[in-house]
C-alpha cells in the first residue's frame, strides 16, 4: 500500500520550490506585509517547506532501505534453514 509520507514530502518540495522561486525572481513586486517582516516571506517560507519535504523524503527512503535489508536478511535466513 501507498506510504503517505512520500506524497507529503513531494508536495512540500514542489510547493517550497514554487514559493521560493517566485519570491526570489521578484515576482513579489507587492512585498506585503509592509513593515512587519524585514525579509522576503515567500523565499523564507518556501525554503522551510522545501526542507520539511526533504527531511520527510529522507525518512521514508531510509525506512524503505531498512525494510529491504530486513526482508533480504529473513529470506537468506529461511533459505539457509531449508
Amino acid at each position, binding site marked *: *500500500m*501507498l506510504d*503517505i509520507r512520500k*506524497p*507529503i514530502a*513531494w*508536495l*512540500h518540495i*514542489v*510547493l517550497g520550490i*514554487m*514559493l521560493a522561486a*517566485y*519570491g526570489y525572481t521578484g*515576482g*513579489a513586486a*507587492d*512585498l*506585503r*506585509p*509592509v513593515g*512587519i*517582516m524585514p525579509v522576503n*516571506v*515567500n523565499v523564507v*517560507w*518556501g525554503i*522551510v*517547506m522545501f526542507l*520539511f519535504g526533504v527531511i520527510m523524503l529522507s525518512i521514508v527512503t531510509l525506512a524503505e532501505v531498512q525494510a529491504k535489508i530486513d526482508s533480504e536478511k529473513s529470506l537468506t535466513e529461511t533459505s539457509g534453514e531449508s
Partner: protein
Amino acid sequence: MDTAPSTSAAAIDYAVIAVYFIFVLGIGFKLKKNMKTSDDFLLAGHRIPAWVTGLAFLSANLGAIEVMGMAANAAQYGIMTAHFYWLGAIPAMVFLAVFMMPFYYKSKIRSVPEYLRRRFNEPTRALNAISFAVMTVLMSGINLYAMAIVFQFILGWPIDLSIWLAALVVLAYTITGGLTSSIYNEVLQFFLIIFGLLPISIMGLAKFDGWDKMKAALPNPAFAHLWQNTISGANPMGCDLIALFAGLGFVLSFGYWCTDFLVVQRALAAKDLHAARMTPIIAAFPKILFPILTVLPGLVAVIVIPQLGSNNQGLSFNMAIPLLMGAMYPHGLFGLGLTALLASFMSGMAGNVTAFNTVWTFDIYQSYIAKNKSDAHYLWMGRLATGVGILISVMAAYLVSSFPSIMDYMQLIFSFFNAPLFATFLLGMFFARTTAWGAFWGLTLGIVAAIVHYVMTVNGQVHYASVMAGNFHRSVVAWTICFVATVAISFITKPKPKHELTGLVWGMEMEEKGEANNQDHNPCPAVDSYLIERPLKFYQKPGFVGIVLIVVTTYLNLLFR
C-alpha cells in the same frame, strides 16, 4: 505598493491551489486498486499506523468550524476560546485512549451505533444511527458553505461554483479510495493547514513585538485571561464554573471526542489495539498547540481590523483569518493560505462523508433494508452512499446559507444529540446493570429535555449571559436527565445475561486468546493478534503519556490564567 486587503489572486496563487488538487486526486486514484471489499472501502481494513490515524483524527475535525469558527470566537470572546482545547478536548481525548478505546476496538464493531446494538438493543442503535446520519451531512454542508463564502469574498467566485467544485473534488477522492483515501488526505491536509496558517501567527507576534505588547493592544484586557471572573461569570464569554467544567469540560467535550463516530472511526482503522489507543494520544500533542493557529489569529484580527464583527457580511467574525491573509500575505504565500483553508474544509467534509457512508451502509441499509447481500453489493452501496451523502451536503450547504449564525446552529445540534449520548455510553461501558430499554428511554428523554430547554431559552423562561453559556448549561441538563432516567428505568427492567456483555463492559473483558477466537469460529490464533497489546515500556503506555498531557495542559491554564 498596496497595503489594502487583497481580494484578488495572482497566477502563482492559482498554481499553488492546482498543485494541491493534483496531489489530492492522485492519492485517491493510487489507492483505488486496494479497494476490493466493503471493509477496505468503509473501514480501511485495519491497516493504518498510529501516527497516520492520529493526525487524521485531528484533521477530520479541523474543518471550517475549527479554523474559522475558533478564530471568530477568539475575536469575539478573547483567549477564553482556548478552553475548547485545554479544557474541552485534551482530557476527553486521554479518557478515550485510556478507558474507552479498548471496548470499541476489541469488540470489533464497525461503527459506534453497532456498539449500542450489541450492548443494548436495535431501537437504541437505530435512534443513534439515524440522528448521527442526519447530523453528519448537516455538518458537512456547513463546511461546504463556509468555503463557498470565503472563495466568493476573496476570489470573487460565484457561491454555486465554489460549492459544486469543492463537492466534486471530495467526491472524486472519497469514492475512489474510500476511508483510506480520506484518512491519507487528512494527513496531507494537516501539514498544509499548519504551513498555511502558521505565518499569520508569526507575523502577528512580530508586528506587536511579542505576546506582552500584543496583550496591551487588545481592546478588552479581559481578552488575555482564561480564568478571570469565572466564579461570577462576569467574563467575556459569560460562563461560570458550572458552564465551563460540567458543560464544556465534561458533557460536551466527552460527548464529542468519546462517542462521535466521525472521530472514533479514525482510531478504529488503526492496525492494532495499541495503535488504536495511541491515536487520540498522538492527536492530543498538536491539539494542545492549535490555539496558536486559531485563537492567536483571532486576537490579532480584533486589533488589526477594528471594524471586525460589524453587520457587513464581508467583515463578520468568521472572516477573521481570510481577512488577515488578505492583509498580510504576499502573493504566493496567499495561495498557500487559501490552499490551507481549502484543505481544512475538504478534510472536514470528507471526514463527515466517510462516517456517514459507513453508518448508512452497515447500520441502516444492511440492518433494516437489505440483509444478507454479497459483499460486492455493500461495497457498491458504500460508493453510492458516498455520492448521495455529498449530494445531500450540497443541499445542506444551501440550507445553512439561510441561517443567520452557523455556530449557534451547530452547537444547538451538538447539545441535542451528543450530550445525552455520552451518559448512555458512560453507563453502558461502566455499569453492567444498565438495561437495553433503560438506555433507549434515557437517551430519548435526554434529547427531549434538550429540546424543551432550548424552547424555554428562546421563549425567555430561562436566561443566560450568552448563547454559549446557554449551550453549555443545556448540555448539562440533557446529560443529567439521560443519566438519571437511564439508571431509574434500568432498575425496573430486566438486564441482559452476563455472557452477552463480555468484552463490552468494564470488568467483563474477554479472555485474551481463547474467547476472542472461539467467538469467530476462527481456527487460526494468529488472526486476532492485533487485538492483544504486546508488553509495553512505561513511556509507551497510553496512561503514562496521558498524564504527561494533562500536566502540560494544566501548566498552560495557569500560564494564561
